[in-house]
C-alpha cells in the first residue's frame, strides 16, 4: 500500500488513541472504561447492597470477616472512532496534496483504531457525506480501509456544517470524531463543531494546510479562480498585498484555534508537506492525541 510504509505501520501498532471521555459504544470492546461494570480486570471491593449479583460476592472474605463484600471489575468498552475526511476540491491542492495527506492521516488513525479493536467509521465529506466506510473493526479490515482511501479523488464544495450534521445520522452513544479538513469554507465551521461539542463527543480537529496557502508563490496581476465554486477575484500588484493576506490567514488560523480551545476540542494544524511519520509519531504524540 502506497499510503503508508510497512515500517511506519509497525510503529503505529504500538500506538493508541488517547481518549479522555467515555466513549461507550453498543458492544463490549477491549478498551478499559473509567466506569465499573462487567469485565475481567479486578478493580476494587465494596459492601454488598441488596440487588447486587451474588456471583460477585467474595466468599473468602465473608468467611474471614463474616461480612459481605462485592468484587468490582473495570468495564471494557468499544470505542467508536469517526474519521471525517474532507475530500472537497480545495483539498486537491498542495504538494503533496492536502487530500493525500488527509488520506495518510486517515489511514494512520484508522489503522491505530483497528489494531486496538475500536469501531472505525470513515466518512468522506464535502458538502455532505459523499462516501462512507463504516463499522470496521479489527486488523482484518485494514486492507479494506486502505483500498477505500486509495481511490478517493477530490470532489464537491465544502459545507462543513452540513457534512458534520449528516455524519451524525444514525449514530448512537458516545463516539470520537476526528475531522481532517482545510476548513476553507465561507459558510464557516463553527456550527458543526458546536454540535459535536454539545453532544459530548470527543473531537479532534486536524487542520491541513498546503504550502501555497501559507506562502502563495504568485506575483503581478492575477485572476484567481476558486477551485470549488469557480468564483473569480482579480488582484493587481499582488506582491504589495501578500503581507496583508498573510495577516488575514494568521487571523483565520487563530480564529479556529481559539474556537477549538473554547469548546474543548483538540486542535492540530500542519502543512501537507510535512512527512506523515513525523506528524503522527511526533506531533500527535506531543499534542497528546496518541500514546
Amino acid at each position: 500500500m502506497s499510503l503508508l510504509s510497512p515500517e511506519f505501520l509497525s510503529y503505529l501498532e504500538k500506538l493508541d488513541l488517547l481518549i479522555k471521555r467515555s466513549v461507550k459504544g453498543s458492544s463490549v470492546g477491549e478498551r478499559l472504561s473509567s466506569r465499573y461494570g462487567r469485565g475481567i480486570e479486578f478493580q476494587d471491593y465494596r459492601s454488598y447492597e441488596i440487588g447486587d449479583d451474588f456471583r460477585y460476592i467474595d466468599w473468602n472474605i465473608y468467611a474471614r470477616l463474616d461480612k459481605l463484600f462485592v468484587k468490582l471489575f473495570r468495564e471494557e468498552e468499544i470505542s467508536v472512532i469517526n474519521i471525517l475526511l474532507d475530500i472537497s476540491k480545495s483539498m486537491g491542492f498542495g504538494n503533496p496534496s492536502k487530500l493525500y495527506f488527509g488520506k495518510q492521516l486517515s489511514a494512520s488513525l484508522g489503522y491505530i483504531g483497528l489494531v486496538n479493536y475500536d469501531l472505525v467509521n470513515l466518512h468522506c465529506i464535502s458538502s455532505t457525506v459523499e462516501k462512507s466506510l463504516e463499522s470496521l473493526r479489527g486488523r482484518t479490515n485494514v486492507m479494506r480501509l486502505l483500498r477505500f482511501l486509495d481511490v478517493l479523488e477530490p470532489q464537491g464544495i465544502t459545507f462543513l456544517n452540513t457534512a458534520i450534521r449528516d455524519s451524525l445520522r444514525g449514530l448512537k452513544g458516545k463516539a470520537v470524531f476526528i475531522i481532517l479538513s482545510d476548513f476553507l469554507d465561507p459558510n464557516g465551521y463553527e456550527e458543526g463543531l458546536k454540535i459535536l461539542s454539545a453532544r459530548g463527543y470527543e473531537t479532534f480537529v486536524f487542520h491541513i494546510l498546503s504550502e501555497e496557502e501559507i506562502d502563495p508563490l504568485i506575483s503581478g496581476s492575477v485572476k484567481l479562480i476558486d477551485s470549488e465554486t469557480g468564483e473569480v477575484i482579480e488582484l493587481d500588484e499582488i506582491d504589495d498585498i501578500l503581507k496583508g493576506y498573510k495577516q488575514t490567514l494568521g487571523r483565520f488560523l487563530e480564529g479556529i484555534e481559539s474556537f477549538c480551545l473554547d469548546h474543548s476540542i483538540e486542535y492540530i494544524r500542519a502543512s501537507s508537506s510535512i512527512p506523515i511519520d513525523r506528524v503522527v509519531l511526533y506531533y500527535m504524540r506531543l499534542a497528546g492525541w496518541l500514546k
Partner: protein
Amino acid sequence: MSFLSPIYFLFLIAIPIVIFLYLLRTRRQILIVPSIYLWKRYTKEELRYSVFKKFLKDILLILQILTIILLTLGLVKPAIFSSVIARNVVFIIDTSCSMQAKDIKPTRFDLAREKALEKVDALGRGTSISVFASDSKTKFLLDYTTDKRLVKEVIKRLYPTDTEGDIGETLSYIEKLNKKPDLIYVFTDGAFEENIPPNLNIELLTFSKDDNNAGITDISARDTGIKGEKEIFIKVKNFSKNKKSIPLQVWEGERLIETDSLDLNPKEERIVIVGPKRFSGIVKAMIYPNDLLSTDDKAYLTFPRVKPSVLLVTKENPYLEIALSLADISILDKTDSFNLEMLSKYDIVIFDGTAPNDILPGNYIFIGKIPSNIPLQVVDITERPTIIRVDATSPIMRFVNLNDMTIKRAVVFESSQGKSLIKVKDGSILWSYEGNLGRIVTFGFYLEESSLIESPSFPILVKNIIGWLGENPSPGVAYTGNVITLRTKKMNEDVTIITPYGVVKRETDDRRSITFGDTYKVGVYSFKSSVGNIDVGVNLCSFLESDISPKVSSKEFKGNAEYRERVLLNTDVWKFLVLGALGTIFLEGYLFYGRRKVS
C-alpha cells in the same frame, strides 16, 4: 478657439495606442486556487487600500493621456478666445415716486430691493458690482466692487423718493462712463421714457401689476387783476381704467376753504378753480381717491409775505438811500452799472438818473430817464412846473403832502395807459403803470432838483411806492427734485430748512444765496433766514409717476446674463502646454518609480 496648426491633432491617435498598451500590460495571470475565501476576506478588510492602489494605477494612465493631450494642444498652437461671463454688473434701482405704489405688497420698491439683493447673491464671486439709484437725479452710490456685503448694505439703505424718475438719463450717464458694464440690471416699474441706449446689455426687472390711481397733476395760482386776488387752478386726473368718485378738499392754513367731489371717467382730467381770493400762507389741496399711490393725492401752494429785494442803480443819492432804508425791504443793493441778467434777480429795480433802452417785465422805478419800451411819451421839459392835481386815491400817494413842493425842472409825460399821480399843465410828472411790463413808477424830475427830498413826505412816498411795487409776490411752488434758490441778506449765513423729512441746515455762499436740491419729498419746505420765513410748496404733479399702469415687460428687455466677451489670448500659450506635458511626464515618473521602490 482657433488652431494655427490643426494637422497635429493627428497626434491624438496616440491615446488609443496608450490605452491598448495599458490593457495589454494589465493582462492578468489566471490561477486556480483551492479557495478564494481568504483573498476575499482580505480584500474586504483592506478595501480602502485596494481602492487607493487602483487609483494610483489608473492615474498613471490618466497622466499619460493628459500628456498626449497637452502635447497635441501645444503642437496645434491654439489661439484662444476667452469666454467670460459678465464681470462688471451695474444695478440700477428705480427710487422714483411710482415705486411706492402698493399694488405689490408691501410696495413695488420693497420687492424690487428684495429681488436686487437676491441677484447680488446669485452673481459669481468675482463679479464687480456698481450701484445706481435713479429718480429725478442719477445717484452714483457705489463704484465697482466685488464686496457683496457692501453692495447689499448700500441697496438695503435705499428708499423711494417722491420725485419723477428718469431711468433713461441714468442709462445715458452709464453709457458715457469709461468703464462699460457687461450687464445692467434695472429694477423698475417701467415708468420711464423708453430711450434706452441700444448698445447697453440690459436686463429689465419690472414690478407693477395694477393701474388704480388718481392724482393731482398740477396746481398753480393766477392773478385776477383785482388787488392781489388770485385763483388757484387744481388739475386732477383719474389714471385708472375704472370710473372714480374723488372727494377734494382745499385748505388755507388750518381753514377748509373748498370742498368738492369729482366724478372722473377713466383717464379723464378735470380742472378745479378755487377763488378768486387773496390767499395767504399755505394752501393745501387734498384728494381722497382710495388708490394705490398716495403721494400724488396732495399738493401745496404758498403765498409768502416776503419783503422785496431792491436794486438801486445810481451814481450817488444819499436822500434816496436813507428813504429806502426806512422802507420794508429785505435786500438793498446799490450799483452804478447794470446788466439785464442782474436786474432779474431783484424784485424791484430803481434807476436813478439812468435807464436801459428796453426793459423786461418786472417792477421798476425810473427817476429822470425812461426806457423806450414803456408806454409813455415825453411831452415837454418845463421849468418850475405847477402841480395841478395829486391822485390821492392811489395807494402810492397815501399820506403824502406835496403842498409846498417846488421842482426846479421836470420832464412832462403823457400816456394813455397807467395813472398820472402828479398832474401838471401838459401832462404828468409822476406816473404809475400796471400791465404786461409789470408795475412801473416814473418820476419826471431828478429828486435832488426838487424840495421833495427834504420833505417829511418823501420817505412816506418811497415806502408807498415800494409797498405797491412789492405787494404782488408770486406763490412759492416747486416740484420734487427741483433746486430751490434763495437769497438772504448776509454771506455765509446759516439757513435752517424745515423739510417734510426733517430739519437741515445750509450756509449761504459769497453771493448770499443758497441752492437747495434735496426736495425729494412732497410737502412744504420752510427756509428760515435773515429775510424771514419763506415757505415753498413742493409737489409731485407728474403724469409719468401718477400713471402707475404696467408699462414695460421684463421679457422685452431680457439681458444675456452670460454675456460673453471674446478676447484673443496670447498665441504663445503652446509653450505653457508643452511645459505642462513635461510636468505630467515627471509626475508620472515620480509616481511609477516611487511605487516600485515601495514594493
